């Protein structure tokens, strides 16, 4: 079997498989090595299956508010295994879709576990095949796209036990929804599971070490989100340090220290969502002398590591740990390798959290922009002043814009409310095209849509909002 390639990609998540497709489009003979399932965590255990779960939860929760719409339904209930089953089916369908894309693009898929060995012009890739045996692949370039996994802290019990303590992975496929749940960490992953289980009636408490939930978001959005979540019955402990997690007779107990006070929170289950660690082990990176910085492979702006011919993209190359960031880096890295990278832009990366309400943001928060020394113009527009939001019964929401007052550059946008994850691309496009407030103001936003709130938030930054 011909085992010499132009490019070997290790890991078939949204970074790896996109890199392989782009490489093939550019005429490179490409192989991709995957130890588990095509599509990686995103497709199989992350972005996609959680969206399936959240859709079920959202529909179920709306059934509880039908009277607002002049509707009623008898006997609202859910079948938890049915919800999980649908989620798995969606993941499977998409994984099969990636297999099709690999075939269509003539990318050779090698099922197995890869490790690297020093060679020129790029390290060679030894694969312990899933089917047994081994293969050695040589290539002119190798791209590491092995992703990341949930960070665990076993010393204080923050590690999955296969039963009562979960990471995202176990939380996605339990037999039943717990009656009570503690979520450690209020980032996107923690909050999405908190939102999901709360919709199904679970008593959920979220523990956050920092002074506010969703700490990467704009402070105003964090505060608005916390209020909205609390209205749905979610409970929070912020500025709270987890001292330890222990098992009780029927569940788990977490000792929490906050403001000098200690308390013990008890629940049936706990989810550990305290961050991400790059999958840098077992690849032979140490022997190659690959520079690793705080659990991630250090790369330059093209994804090149310090080892000739070896590149890294996506979660393994550092934050933000987002699928679309991995895909974006994949294309940029492959185009650089193939020498067609002219005109590549360092575009801002939007972030989305699919809770109820949704949260989406891009660029700098107000505090970050201030810290950067910019003079600012800030605009805000609430959903409750938006016609479509009122008609749809989705008045909980806010759009906030941050402009550089000197140049009119949109430096950040922050949204909370229904469908904001679908709308943030409007601001992403504006920022990537380097629109100023003038072009966004001149853009016609269709009526009636929630997106009009984006337009108004831009107008408001310049004191020109029409519906405030």
């Amino acid at each position: 079997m011909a085992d010499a390639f132009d490019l070997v990609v290790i890991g078939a998540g949204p970074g790896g498989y996109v890199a392989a497709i782009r490489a093939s489009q550019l005429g490179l003979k490409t192989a991709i090595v995957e130890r588990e399932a095509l599509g990686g965590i995103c497709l199989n255990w992350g972005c996609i299956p959680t969206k399936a779960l959240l859709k079920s939860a959202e529909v179920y929760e709306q059934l509880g508010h039908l009277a607002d719409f002049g509707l009623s339904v008898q006997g609202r209930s859910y079948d938890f295994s049915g919800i999980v089953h649908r989620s798995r089916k969606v993941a499977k369908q998409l994984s099969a879709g990636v297999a099709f894309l690999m075939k269509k693009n003539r990318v050779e898929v090698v099922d197995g576990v890869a490790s690297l060995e020093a060679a020129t012009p790029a390290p060679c890739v030894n694969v312990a095949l899933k089917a047994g045996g081994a293969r050695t692949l040589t290539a002119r370039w190798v791209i590491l796209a092995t992703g990341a996994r949930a960070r665990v802290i076993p010393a204080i019990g923050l590690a999955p036990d296969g039963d009562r303590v979960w990471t995202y992975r176990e939380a996605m496929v339990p037999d039943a929804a717990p009656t009570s749940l503690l979520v450690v960490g209020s980032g996107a992953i923690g909050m999405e599971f908190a939102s999901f289980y709360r919709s199904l009636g679970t008593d959920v408490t979220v523990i956050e070490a920092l002074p506010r939930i969703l700490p990467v978001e704009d402070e105003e959005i964090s505060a608005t989100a916390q209020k909205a979540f609390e209205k749905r019955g979610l409970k929070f402990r912020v500025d709270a340090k987890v001292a330890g997690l222990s098992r009780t007779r029927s569940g788990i107990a977490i000792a929490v220290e906050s403001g000098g006070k200690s308390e013990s929170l008890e629940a049936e289950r706990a989810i550990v969502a305290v961050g991400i660690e790059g999958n840098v082990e077992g690849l032979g990176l140490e022997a190659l002398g690959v520079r690793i910085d705080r659990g991630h492979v250090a790369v330059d702006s093209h994804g090149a590591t310090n080892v000739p011919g070896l590149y890294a993209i996506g979660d393994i190359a550092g934050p933000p740990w987002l699928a679309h960031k991995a895909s974006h880096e994949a294309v940029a890295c492959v185009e650089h390798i193939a020498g067609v990278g002219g005109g590549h832009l360092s575009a801002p990366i939007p972030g989305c959290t699919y809770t109820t309400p949704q949260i989406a943001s891009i660029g700098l928060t107000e505090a970050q922009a201030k810290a950067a020394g910019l003079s600012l113009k800030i605009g805000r527009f609430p959903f409750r002043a938006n016609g479509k939001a009122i008609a749809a019964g989705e008045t909980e929401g806010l759009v906030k814009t941050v402009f550089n007052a000197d140049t009119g550059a949109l430096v950040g946008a922050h949204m909370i409310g229904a469908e904001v994850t679908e709308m943030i691309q409007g601001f992403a496009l504006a920022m990537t095209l380097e629109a100023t407030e003038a072009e966004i103001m001149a853009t016609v936003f269709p009526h009636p849509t929630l997106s009009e709130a984006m337009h108004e938030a831009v107008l408001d930054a310049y004191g020109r909002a029409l519906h405030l």
Partner: protein
Amino acid sequence: MSTDVLMPALSPTMEEGALAKWHVKVGDTVRSGDVIAEIETDKATMEVEAVDEGVVEALLVPEGTESVKVNAPIARLSGGGTATAAASPARSGGAPGETMAVRVPAAPPVAPATAGRRAAVTTPASGRLLASPLARRVASQMGVDLAGIRGSGPHGRIILRDVEGFKPAVAVVMSARAAPPSESPREVRSLEQMGIPQGTYDLKPLDGMRKTVARRMTESFRNVPHFPLTIDLEIDALLAARSSINALLTAEGGKVSVNDLIIKAAAIALQRVPEANASYTPEGLAFHHHADIAVAVAVDGGLITPIVRAAETKGVAQIASEMKGLAERARTRKLKPEEYLGGTFTISNLGMFGIRSFASIINEPQGAILSVGAGERRAVVRGESLAAATVMTVTLTCDHRVVDGAIGARWLAAFRTLIENPITMIV
């Protein structure tokens, strides 16, 4: 029907300018593209072209008028067609009647001629100029002409980073007339893109001195039209003089180097040929009163040029002791700015490294720099026979804008006289 020709804005910040010269008179027929006038600001002189046809009916502003407001009518044409919108004035000046647009030619591309105006981003030659809205706005705020910037975005689109990273050539602040043709800034490519993989070298970040050396040398080599003049000097007499001087100075503990004598000789030569002790400026040629001799001193990580002020007035012993202190402070990076800023002439000596001959890069704004090679025993022809002598090759690099070949040659002749007959230094 008449149309008014309005005073054009040569830069976004320009509010008024001088009407330097009319190229047309009443009764002339002008066609699109004809140069009709020259406009001057403190920064630039630009030719103004007519966009439409017509007969000059009146020149409303006399030649030589200072402080003509932008958009004020400066001439009236009759029989012209309709006004063009192609370069409509940036401000609505409320001028009566129809206005005739003028177009400032894009010929000297570095000139901030049309920067900032919305219409300006359309260059007649190349059609539409691709630039992001933010890039356009920031360029206009900075007074930078987009036409001189190379876009790094898709399809060569000019984006913010191109504008922010753009350093206008020095010439922008000088006369547009004298400005050399602009070059778009080179696209900076990583070593890896150029075939040198990461990990095969160590990267040392640029310190302030390295950045300054890189910037000043690049600007000088690119902007100054320079040429070298080389001669050989016999220095046996100079070496003998040095020995005698040092014999006298030993008692006082001083010591004079060949370089100190070269400083003294150069200073006197600059007094004798004052045309060489000069700087080019857009306003005129500056002839310096004193010979402030900058001396290149190699230091760890770069070089610096401390200055012996008014060296023509100082004795060699004093020059020697000043140089000793300056070189010491240079090496310990303790020079004060007034000790290294503002010389009128530079000497760079690589003789101690055995270099026979080299041509230095002009130390702007000085008009010339002297490169001194090693003194070595060489065969020389005396009359019809060969003899041995200690010979030193020196090269004078001249800024041709101020020091022409003949001036440089005269300076070298004066310098030769002083070096080969050191006693004349005290005459």
